[in-house]
């Protein structure tokens, strides 16, 4: 119902297409035509990856709230038991995560516990590089979803990251995802458009990076032509949320704005199978408790609103969200009412197709490894399932010979 029609698309893109129509080397019409002719087929699975930068404290996200060791290890950082949101198995969600609790009760949330990789690295950069490259053993410069992009036919709309810098996650060896800043892209018009397209043509004299520079400008034209009109549309209504003063009572944040744009584009039928959004600020070495409840509140509210928006489109059952961070944090608090870098943490998978519940073992507070939580699930198990069972692509090319899987999806 909200899928953009061919007619509507042509009408909305009229300006941009007319401007480009005079160009002798015009590819813009072809690209727009292609987008119109191939909106993502209904029922095509879509993955939304939410990266929490800084190392989210997993132990204060999915909290073993009946365990006295939890309270004694971090007296200044633990929450009062009556504010936490119990979800069974002696675990509770962070007090800020009411929206997530609702989705959990609706059995739409899989929580994979103790996720990490062998020999955990405590550095933000190394650990994030490991998660995003999907390669804990050897250093590779491509992202796991970048390698997925490489395996697909070239399409600048296939994978899109919100924000102007592309995360390594979507960097492939041959091709990469596109970056889309909040507010969308504004393309040059008139003569400048013609010349910019000429300037960004493939040249066989280009070095690798020059070719990448040319491609980024070419993609500006192709992505923006398809995206710009859609961004002008109102966001899909969040059907479950009360409306206050013309807006949804979901609060606002950069993450929620990012997910708003994603919701609009999904509703419009953008041929995009992978979306990447992010929120930073989780490096809570100091004064953690309030800050983290606030941040997780943003995550929880934004996702709740997004899921609600999806219901007013016909793609609600196509979307799966994955939330992860580069590591959890140390069990014991430090002197600054914060925690230092740790190891494993929970990964959340959310969607209509998800079989809600717990996966993986909760790391024990009595069997710490050097003061850190043990890793009970390898993240590649989750990636494997995302690639094979959601994106329908062989995992082997992307993750190598990795056989573990986390079966968090409903049986079909």
């Amino acid at each position, binding site marked *: 119902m909200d899928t953009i029609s061919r007619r509507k698309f042509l009408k909305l893109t009229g300006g941009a297409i007319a401007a480009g129509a005079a160009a002798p080397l015009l590819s813009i019409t072809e690209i727009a035509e292609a987008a119109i002719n191939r909106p993502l087929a209904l029922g095509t699975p879509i993955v939304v990856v939410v990266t929490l930068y800084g190392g989210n404290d997993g132990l204060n996200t999915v909290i073993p709230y009946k365990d006295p060791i939890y309270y004694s290890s971090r007296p200044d950082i633990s929450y009062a038991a009556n504010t936490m949101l119990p979800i069974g198995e002696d675990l509770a969600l962070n007090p800020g995560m009411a929206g997530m609790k609702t989705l959990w009760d609706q059995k739409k949330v899989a929580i994979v516990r103790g996720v990490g990789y062998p020999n955990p690295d405590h550095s933000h950069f190394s650990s994030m590089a490991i998660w995003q490259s999907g390669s804990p053993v050897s250093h590779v410069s491509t992202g796991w979803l970048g390698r997925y992009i490489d395996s697909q036919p070239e399409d600048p709309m296939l994978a899109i990251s919100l924000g*102007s810098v592309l995360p390594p996650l979507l960097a492939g060896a041959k091709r990469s995802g596109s970056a889309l800043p909040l507010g969308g892209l504004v393309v040059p018009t008139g003569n*400048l458009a013609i*010349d910019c397209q000429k300037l960004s043509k493939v040249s066989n004299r280009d070095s690798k*990076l020059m070719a990448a*520079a*040319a491609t*980024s400008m070419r993609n500006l034209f192709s992505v923006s032509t398809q995206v710009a009109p859609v961004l002008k549309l109102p966001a899909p209504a969040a059907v479950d949320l009360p409306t206050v003063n013309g807006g949804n009572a979901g609060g606002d944040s950069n993450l929620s704005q990012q997910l708003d744009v994603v919701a609009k584009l999904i509703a419009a039928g953008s041929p995009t199978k992978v979306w990447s959004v992010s929120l930073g600020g989780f490096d809570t070495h100091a004064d953690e408790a309030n800050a983290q409840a606030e941040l997780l509140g943003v995550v929880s509210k934004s996702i709740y609103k997004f899921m609600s928006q999806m219901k007013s489109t016909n793609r609600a059952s196509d979307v799966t969200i994955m939330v992860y961070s580069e590591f959890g944090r140390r069990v014991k608090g*430090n002197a600054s009412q914060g925690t230092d870098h740790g190891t494993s943490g929970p990964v959340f998978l959310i969607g209509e197709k998800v079989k809600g519940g717990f996966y993986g073992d909760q790391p024990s507070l009595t069997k710490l490894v*050097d003061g850190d939580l043990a890793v009970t699930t390898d993240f590649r198990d989750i990636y494997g399932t995302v690639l094979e069972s959601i994106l329908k692509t062989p995992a082997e090319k992307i993750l190598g010979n990795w056989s573990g899987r986390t079966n968090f999806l409903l049986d079909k």
Partner: protein
Amino acid sequence: MATISERVEIARLSHRFGFGPRPGEFASALKMGVSGYRSQTLTVPQIDIGASAIKEPEITDLGKRPAPNTPEVIPFAQAMRFQSQQLLLWWLDRMALSDHGLTERMTWFWHGHWATSIGKINYAMPMYLQNKTLRTHSLGNFKEMARAMINDGALQYWLDGNNSTIKAPNENLSRELMELFILGVNRYSEDDVKALARALTGYQVTNSSGTLTFNIKRHDANPITLLGTTAAFDGQSASDFLVVREDCATFIAERLWYRFVSSTEPLPNNSSIKSAFADRNIASAVKAMASDGAMSDAKNEMVRAPVEWFISLCRALNITPSKLSTPAQLISYLDKLSQTPFSPPNVGGWPADEAWLSSASAQYRIAFGKWILKQGDLSPITTLPQSSRIAKTADWLGVAEWSPRTQGALRNAVGDPEEFVLLAICSPEYLVSA
């Protein structure tokens, strides 16, 4: 006539060891030849007239933030914003107006290395002091630099040293000191991180001034075992201990290589950069790097980060960044391109190469470029006949050569100087230091 490989090497020296040529500089560098231009690039003059003409920013200790909802809060917040903006414009001016580029270029490198963000510090004063420290040591001895940085209020506050006590040491500074500043990742163990954190306890920072004090009562003076050596360390002795290790030479050579030569090719074994750094002299390492055969190797191309791109434009167009109208607009463009000095995204500094080449940044670069060109001096090409503009623009901007593709686009716009230059500065050949 200079050969193409001479043009490439001179363009690299100009854009990587400085911020690109002013009008006429590239042509005279070509006449000078590679080795003459290299030694000019590496020789820091006694007096830099361009840089010394820039007034220091008016930055003062603003003291504690007044209580919320008091009348003092508004002028306080305005003063905070004003000082941060003055600080940023002052540094951009130094980059653009220095006669000799190497010192600012190295200060910029070290800012990315010891990456500290005003986002957490809030006050301009500690950031200003840190910037001066980085400049003082930018081509000096790394041992002295590391000592100075251990005692830098902004860095200590940024990495939670302010809150690290014997009762509960905070590992943030300890880890980054080894991982990102001195040794490199995985050249130490988790036990070393915990041990060094204990030795680094006891510092306290007054954040409005950046003043660092040492509180012996909060310090853990017990012996620790650090990288196999058991001794009682404090910040300075721990820093000295790390700096003399061979891993430090490897790491600093790797970082220089990554930012000046190639972010994708690994530092070769037995690199001349590392051996030149044996006594921790930064200038020697930089000289070895500029003279290395790798500087003329075609595969060692680099994307110019947004600040480098912007400053090179200022130099070509005779622009003083602080005089651009308006500074707020300038800062907004830098933000959109995701690179604002004093605000690195995290303690690892800014990314490199492909990260700057998204379709989003292509859009912002066009808009930013248009805005700058309206305020710049285009006479280096408007005074020329159209027939020679394309070739002369390569010399003006310090580009080794244009591809036939780019020449084609430039030819289309040769009668419209603003659009012509806009295309040139957004071309793959200008974005990449080939």
